[in-house]
């Protein structure tokens, strides 16, 4: 008996050792440079979490409310309810949030009297009755995974003030920026395996220091998890394209698909491209492994779509629209398909001859997308002086030229990997089409409701690859210097962006 007990007791220990020995080499396979890039991204986002005034990031009050509801009641907020909890409203009042938001001349609270008032409001907020926040504004329609993760710091600090909980939640988001940079490094290492390691570092560091990533991941917003999941999927796909789709790879991609579905509705834009990638990988694997490759594909899809199936089943049983928010969007008929296609095209590119101009006087690529990338913080109310956006065209143009040169030099490799590139392009097109189609639902009342660069940050791995290529495009002699300059430019951009935000709220 004792022997059996001993054996029983020993088995888990051995399993644990085996698991550890399998996991340890995997983690050890992650280069030290990738971890350092992750650390830089985390530190950067942590800085942004301190420099951005409380609740002055896009939709942060709504996302906070979602976490509050989930953490305090265990249930999801109700779609369509706008009202926030009295605890949060009192805090927003104390912070003068409405006066500060979208009014760049209005600073954060800057006097002892205002701080004392805030303390009183915070005390009143903590004493206020009522649990949760049934309304969570625009966040209510989002899936719950990010909010469930954020519920951990929320619960840990449940006895502290709203602002303490917010800060801890922001730091949790900052960890996700670290994951994003890490996976971008790993993705670039997979797609440019012949490149010298410094090129991967350039990509990882530049992404780690991207101001918009820091800003969004220094706030409470599910975008931060979406960026990390998307970067992980790009990495998993690139790895599978290089080494073939095995069971572990399929399970990983399936699990990441499931995580993506549970993170943010925008993830749907990435899905068609990912599915194309999986299909291509399975077809390739089938040449060697036969039908078992398709079983691997089925496994990935089963894991990936399981949350979707559960969601649809729950909706069917509760007689709600099958696909929730997506059903409403699909059912909204708005103009002809050609008009919508025309709008989607012009959302990013100059209009084609003979088509209706949906954005008269606007060059979307430059005036909304490029300016949004260079600097548009807070509630889209914090901008650089106009000349900065013109100057920023110079390094951008240089990077584009160098990247183009590198691609031209590697045109033979590009041809050989055309299918893989087409998969990345289809992911890119899917996301861009989704954002534009969503905006079209608001058109013409609002011209470009969702023309916000943060929605494109799931494509950061492609930017990382482009930056690494740009450094390589400078040639063997000048490449390392070009890479260094790219990292410095991103660092300077980040630094000036933080100074801009600090000046706007505390100047």
């Amino acid at each position, binding site marked *: 008996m004792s022997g059996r007990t001993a054996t029983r007791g020993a088995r888990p220990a051995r399993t644990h050792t085996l698991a550890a020995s399998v996991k340890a080499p995997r983690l050890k396979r992650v280069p030290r*440079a990738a971890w*350092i*890039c992750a*650390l*830089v991204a985390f*530190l950067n986002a*942590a800085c942004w979490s*301190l420099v951005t005034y409380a609740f002055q990031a896009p939709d942060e009050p709504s996302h906070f409310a979602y976490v509050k509801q989930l953490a305090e009641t265990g249930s999801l907020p109700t779609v369509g309810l706008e009202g926030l909890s009295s605890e949060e409203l009192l805090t927003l009042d104390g*912070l003068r949030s409405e006066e500060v938001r*979208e*009014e*760049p*001349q209005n600073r*954060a*609270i*800057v*006097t002892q009297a*205002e*701080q004392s008032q*805030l303390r009183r409001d915070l005390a009143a907020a903590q004493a206020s009755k009522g649990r949760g926040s049934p309304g969570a504004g625009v966040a209510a329609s989002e899936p719950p995974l990010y909010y469930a993760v954020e519920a951990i710091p929320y619960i840990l600090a449940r006895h502290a*003030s709203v*602002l303490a*909980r*917010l800060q801890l939640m922001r730091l949790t988001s900052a960890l996700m920026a670290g994951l994003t940079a890490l996976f971008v490094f790993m993705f670039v290492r997979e797609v440019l395996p012949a490149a010298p*390691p*410094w090129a991967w*570092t350039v990509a990882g*560091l530049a992404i780690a*220091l991207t101001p918009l990533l820091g800003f969004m991941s220094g706030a409470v917003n599910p975008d931060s998890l979406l960026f990390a999941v998307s970067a992980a999927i790009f990495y998993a796909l690139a790895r599978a394209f290089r080494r073939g789709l095995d069971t572990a790879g399929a399970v990983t991609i399936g699990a990441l698909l499931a995580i993506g579905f549970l993170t943010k509705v925008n993830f749907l834009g990435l899905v068609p491209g990912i599915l194309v990638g999986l299909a291509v990988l399975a077809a390739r694997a089938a040449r060697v492994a036969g039908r078992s490759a398709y079983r691997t594909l089925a496994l990935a899809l089963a894991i990936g779509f399981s949350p979707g199936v559960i969601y649809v089943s729950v909706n069917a049983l509760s007689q709600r629209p099958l696909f929730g928010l997506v059903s409403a969007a699909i059912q909204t008929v708005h103009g002809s398909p050609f008009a919508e296609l025309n709008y989607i095209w012009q959302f990013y590119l100059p209009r084609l001859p003979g088509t209706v101009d*949906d*954005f*008269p*006087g*606007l060059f979307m690529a430059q*005036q*909304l997308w490029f*300016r949004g990338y260079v600097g548009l913080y807070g*509630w889209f*109310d914090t901008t650089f*002086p106009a000349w900065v956006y013109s100057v920023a065209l110079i390094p951008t143009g240089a990077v584009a030229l160098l990247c183009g040169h590198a691609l031209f030099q590697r045109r033979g490799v590009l041809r050989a990997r055309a299918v893989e590139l087409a998969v990345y392009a289809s992911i890119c097109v899917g996301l861009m089409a989704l954002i534009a189609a969503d905006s079209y639902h608001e058109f*013409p*009342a*609002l*011209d*470009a409701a969702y023309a916000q660069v943060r929605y494109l940050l799931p494509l950061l791995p492609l930017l990382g690859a482009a930056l690494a290529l740009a450094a390589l495009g400078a040639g063997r002699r000048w490449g*390392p*210097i070009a890479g*260094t*300059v790219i990292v*410095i430019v991103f*660092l*300077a951009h980040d*630094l*000036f962006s933080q*100074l801009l935000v*600090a*000046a706007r*709220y*505390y*100047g």
Partner: protein
Amino acid sequence: MLRVRIALALGLGITVVAVAVVLSSSPPALLATNSVAESTGLSETGTRPFRICQGDERLPRGTDSIQASLEAYTGPRLTLTAYAAGRVVTSGELAAGWSGRAVPISVGTVRRTLSPVTVCLTATLVDEPLQVVGSATSAARAARGTLAQPIGGRIRLVYLGAGRASWLARARSVARNMEFGRAWSGAWIAPVLVLLMLVAASVASALVLSARE
């Protein structure tokens, strides 16, 4: 390797100099407002070209930017022109694509205080209606729309110019302001922020160097 070190040192040096230059400049300061509260939406412009003019304004000396309370999600290109005694005294433009409800438009610096001044806002390519924000007044004092008809009130205008003290001179007050509105207030915020950024920059620089080895 040496060239990378030099590039890194040079790049960081230029960044430090650029930060110093920016910090030695003065932030924009609020010179005056026209004392109109943002209490109501006065009118919506529609999607046609418009021109709104508001008289009886006082343009302070040193004004280099005028902020008009207009609200849009994707705003059109705007032209602002200020007239005194029928002559243009300053003007400026704002590129299309702006967003928000308080639009600062850079104008040529005003050399001396002028009054009365008429401020006109013009947009020729309007695709998304704009909300004009201000306070209701009598028709006689109200701003005038494209066909010179009163729009129901006066628009809030804010006059901005270069401040006197540089950012560097104001560094302590900025650091002090950062203490407020936080979970854990204290003088530690600004130093910790600087320290975190320095650590991030140092780690990144060290990685740039080690990656070449």
